[in-house]
């Protein structure tokens, strides 16, 4: 028998608490949407961290503001606005940041310019709308408990598209991310892949902000990948751990928030941070313990033959 929604109680019996959670449609929707988002944010965030494009990711997350305000103005669901503006923002960043021959200063200037104009557009839409954006708090901090069936379907569709594209371009994208010059010489279209990745990043950011809100997207986009990359340099294991950490963070955060009076976004971001810090501490402790011991026998350098000074 479902407990009182207004006053859920933790029974300290895990199985009973979980089954209580799953009795509510809004909770299953939240857990489902959270899982979808954890997977795509994790995988795409893993590449974002590897490519050092967190500034682009941050700017794309702010696209939710013009996205939501234009959607309010047009009277369409906010999610449509999110996805539309994230896509446009990704294309603009791709054009302005120089593609293949990117220099960091040029790239960040281009992204900064896109960020400013997007926020300005959002401001304009809000004044045209003539009122206060109703769900400003949801926009900023997310509202996983309010995820509708339609939103779950939309997220699932976006995730399928993103995973298919990622599967098709994954290997050349990894090559171009880590080693653009050699990849280019091998005929990999480095510039086109860079733009495609920004589009994927836009999708992932828009999807994530449905759950965590604009301000907390990095809790899922950066936290789990950075944790996994701190632990291992093996790519497949790292990607696997990213998904596991993402699911852990989202589900635990949603579960705790159900039994608490505090919002889910807070728990998700805090758990994500805690997992990251814990991993860094464990890695540092491992390095500290092996400090002083040779990590490997010194490589036998071939004796320098020929002429040296």
């Amino acid at each position, binding site marked *: 028998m479902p407990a009182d929604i207004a006053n859920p109680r933790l029974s300290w019996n895990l199985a009973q608490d979980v089954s209580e959670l799953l009795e509510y449609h809004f909770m299953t929707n939240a857990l489902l949407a959270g899982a979808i988002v954890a997977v795509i944010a994790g995988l795409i965030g893993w590449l974002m961290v590897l490519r050092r494009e967190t500034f682009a990711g941050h700017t794309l997350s702010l696209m939710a503001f013009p996205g939501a305000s234009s959607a309010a103005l047009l009277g369409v669901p906010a999610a449509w606005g999110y996805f539309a503006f994230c896509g446009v923002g990704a294309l603009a960043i791709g054009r302005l940041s120089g593609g293949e021959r990117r220099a960091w200063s040029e790239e960040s200037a281009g992204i900064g310019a896109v960020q400013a104009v997007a926020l300005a557009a959002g401001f304009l839409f809000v004044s045209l709308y003539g009122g206060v954006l109703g769900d400003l708090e949801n926009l900023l901090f997310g509202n996983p408990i309010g995820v509708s069936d339609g939103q779950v379907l939309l997220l699932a569709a976006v995730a399928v598209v993103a995973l298919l594209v990622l599967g098709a371009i994954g290997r050349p994208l990894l090559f171009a991310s880590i080693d653009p010059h050699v990849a280019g*010489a091998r005929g990999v279209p480095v510039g086109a892949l860079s733009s495609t990745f920004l589009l994927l990043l836009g999708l992932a950011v828009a999807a994530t902000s449905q759950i965590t809100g604009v301000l907390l997207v990095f809790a899922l986009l950066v936290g789990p990948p950075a944790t996994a990359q701190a632990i291992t*340099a093996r790519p497949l294991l790292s990607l696997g751990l990213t998904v596991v950490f993402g699911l852990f963070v989202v589900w635990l955060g949603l579960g705790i928030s159900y039994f608490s009076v505090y919002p889910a976004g807070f728990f998700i971001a805090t758990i994500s941070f805690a997992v990251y810090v814990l991993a860094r501490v464990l890695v540092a402790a491992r390095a500290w313990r092996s400090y002083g011991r040779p990590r490997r026998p010194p490589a036998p350098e071939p004796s320098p033959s020929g002429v040296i000074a």
Partner: protein
Amino acid sequence: MPATGLPRRDGPAVELDGASVRVGGRVVWRDVSLTVARGEFVALLGANGSGKSTLLKVLLGAQRLQAGSVRVLGGAPGESSRAIGYLPQRRSFDQGTRLRGIDIVRLGLDGDRWGLPLAPPWSAGSARRRRAARERVAEVIEMVGAGSYARRAIGELSGGEQQRLLIAQALVRRPELLLLDEPLDSLDLPNQASVAGLVEDICRGAGVAVLLVAHDVNPLLPYLDRVVYLARGRAVEGPVEQVITSETLTRLYGLPVEVLRASDGRLVVVGQPEAPAHHHDRHAHAAAHGHSHAHAG
């Protein structure tokens, strides 16, 4: 047998005939003719800005010639990119790059193949191919002597260790031609000598033609078949003892240049105009060259 699946064509590894290149209105070099035979080890020398990397770009098909002709492995440049191992100018991986050396080498093998990254274990019929790929990667890592550190994150490795893994990456597809852009740059002297020796082993052992861009010929002296020297938009090619002489370099630079031989066999070039310190000067300099060539031609 090349593993590239392409029919191996006849003809020398590299053949430039009367080639000229212009980049952004500036003539980089003109009327350059040179041949690198199969299995030959040739160094490409010259000061900064003399157009060494541009020459490699021409061979990769990334830069068009203004005049003359170029053939690479018997075909047009860019046609046989699968049979070329390319090591771009000194790049080092950021300390935070969390991929292993072995993954970097593996990307050299099949990083340009579309599909899932590092094929999932359940993909049918790929077990044999995966094993062959793993064995090939292990083989080249052994060949460059990187076995003891190939499983560590690439960002944690020293410059010399990274360079060996990058050479392994360039080798992993059994190329017929290796284009190495300053592989010895920013290595310490013992590492310069051992990487030069490694390249020679690869060249002789696998019959791979090597064109290696270098600043300093000394670490390479015991191994080279020939050198190509680029200066003032022109090139001279030949054996070391004919090219790196006071006479030839003085003629090439149009300035008095002296080549001294130290008692240990090292060559010291005195009076060679190095690249000017300021970019501004360098462009003015280059423009002046372009101008004089235009008149000469």
